[in-house]
């Protein structure tokens, strides 16, 4: 019983990573009908940004140059990383996707893959092949939650992921930029007739997705502190699968798909040997998609209208 509850926390933790990254795929897809295949590598770069920010702040705090408590260092690292990561997304859109806005979607997708490889190679070139260790921002300790033993880090990850998702939801529901994003997902072509600059909304969407990937990067780095330039590939693809599983372009779907994927993976690993995990887990995903090809919350047809 406690074993099951224990695994539940692992599933929620991985679900949080997947969901935060999957949101970036889904938001961009919903407005542009484009899978941003560079997003996994944006997550990777964001994690490195988090590493540098954390190392810097921690150094300043330990040397006494800045009177920061441990919690303050963590909060600042999270916010600064999210802020800086948003510019990676904006840059990718500006450089790679904007010139291809009227090109076939396949061209944009291929470009995205190449941008991903470019980012991996760039990080490799700038930082060398040696792996970096994400600094310890929070002393990890285990505590008892009823019959279950959990770490404070896992709880923090899950709570923060949920808080960010609620904030995103409010942003999309209540602000005019959020309304514009929803409107754009319905009918792209008439957005300018509302006096709304398309480029601004698109840049904002990329920024939001990348900021969430930045938050995932910091939380991931704290839990799995070994960083390398290819760390974004597998987790990026898995988050992409989560976005598809949830329903392409659906915000709620990205969250549901992320957590569902976390659960499937942990469940399979708990029952079978862990080498079998991805094989079986993704077979289950394929099976679900066989019966629900548009995912859990996907629309059967999101037709892009033309004016």
């Amino acid at each position, binding site marked *: 019983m406690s074993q099951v509850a224990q695994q539940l926390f692992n599933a929620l933790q991985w679900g949080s990573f997947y969901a935060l990254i999957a949101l970036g795929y889904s938001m961009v897809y919903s407005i542009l009908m484009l899978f941003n295949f560079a997003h996994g590598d944006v997550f990777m770069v964001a994690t490195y940004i988090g590493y540098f920010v954390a190392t810097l702040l921690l150094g300043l705090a330990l040397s006494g140059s800045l009177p920061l408590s441990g919690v303050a260092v963590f909060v600042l690292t999270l916010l600064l990383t999210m802020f800086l990561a948003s510019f990676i997304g904006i840059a990718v859109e500006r450089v790679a996707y904007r010139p291809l806005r009227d090109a076939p979607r396949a061209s944009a997708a291929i470009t995205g893959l190449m941008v991903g490889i470019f980012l991996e190679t760039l990080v490799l070139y700038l930082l060398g092949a040696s792996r970096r260790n994400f600094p310890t921002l929070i002393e990890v300790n285990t505590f008892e939650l009823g019959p279950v033993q959990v770490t404070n880090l896992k709880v923090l990850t899950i709570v923060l992921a949920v808080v960010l998702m609620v904030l995103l939801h409010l942003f999309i529901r209540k602000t005019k930029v959020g309304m514009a994003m929803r*409107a754009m997902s*319905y009918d792209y072509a*008439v957005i*300018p*007739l509302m*006096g*709304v*600059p398309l480029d601004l909304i698109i840049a904002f969407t990329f920024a939001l997705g990348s900021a969430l990937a930045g938050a995932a990067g910091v939380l991931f780095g704290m839990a799995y502190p070994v960083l390398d330039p290819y760390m974004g590939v597998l987790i990026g693809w898995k988050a992409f699968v989560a976005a598809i599983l949830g329903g392409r372009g659906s915000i709620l779907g990205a969250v549901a798909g992320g957590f569902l994927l976390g659960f499937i993976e942990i469940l399979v690993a708990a029952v079978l040997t862990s080498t079998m995990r991805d094989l079986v887990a993704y077979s289950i995903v394929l099976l679900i998609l066989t019966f629900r090809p548009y995912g859990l919350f996907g629309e059967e047809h999101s037709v892009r*209208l033309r*004016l």
Partner: protein
Amino acid sequence: MAAERTPQLVVENLEVYYGAIKALHGISFHVYPGEIVTIIGANGAGKTSTLRAISRLVKVGPETRMTFEGHDLLAYPPHKVVSELGISHVPEGRRLFGNLTVWENLQLATFARKDPPEVIQRDFDMVFDLFPRLAERRNQRAGTMSGGEQQMLAVARALITARRMMLLDEPSMGLAPKLMQEMFEALKEINKEGTTILLVEQNANMALRFAQRGYVLETGNLVLEGPSQDLLANPRVKEAYLGG
């Protein structure tokens, strides 16, 4: 007509291409401030292309010149035609954001406006006054409303975005005669408040009764123009557009 007035909108030699297809063969027309002008034409004549060109949604030919209140329209991106020049556009087929509520559709239309909240509130009051049905349905999703209500919202939304000039693309399409009548009465009201109207229509009878002046568009060329009275009496217009 009063020759000393300067037109608000001047379109000269407007050409629109879709790939190899030439939709407009260099048409010229103008609209005076406060006027109601209509361009009538059959399906495929190029009416929608004309409005899309003014709103800068399609590329135009190299010889094309368009000015609005003295500003070179071609120097403005589409969103600034709305927010800086004040030209709103009710597109063909309404094109509401069906996933947003009535209120959200109107709210989004204020995106680029820099007016203080009181002014915007007054505009909301005005459109709710003009179309009381929208006030009742403010929290309903636009996509679930009837065709008539959707057309009201499309006009209301345009009115909120900008109001120096309104471009209307077949607002009568799909409306029952009574609703159509109501719609055109509301548009008259809007025009009285100072908004210039450029209407394109297949329903020539309705459009010419509503407008002061009209142009006739045939396969990308303007073939006739004049006061609506004259066009209504013109044998060629009667024959081709008014059912004999």
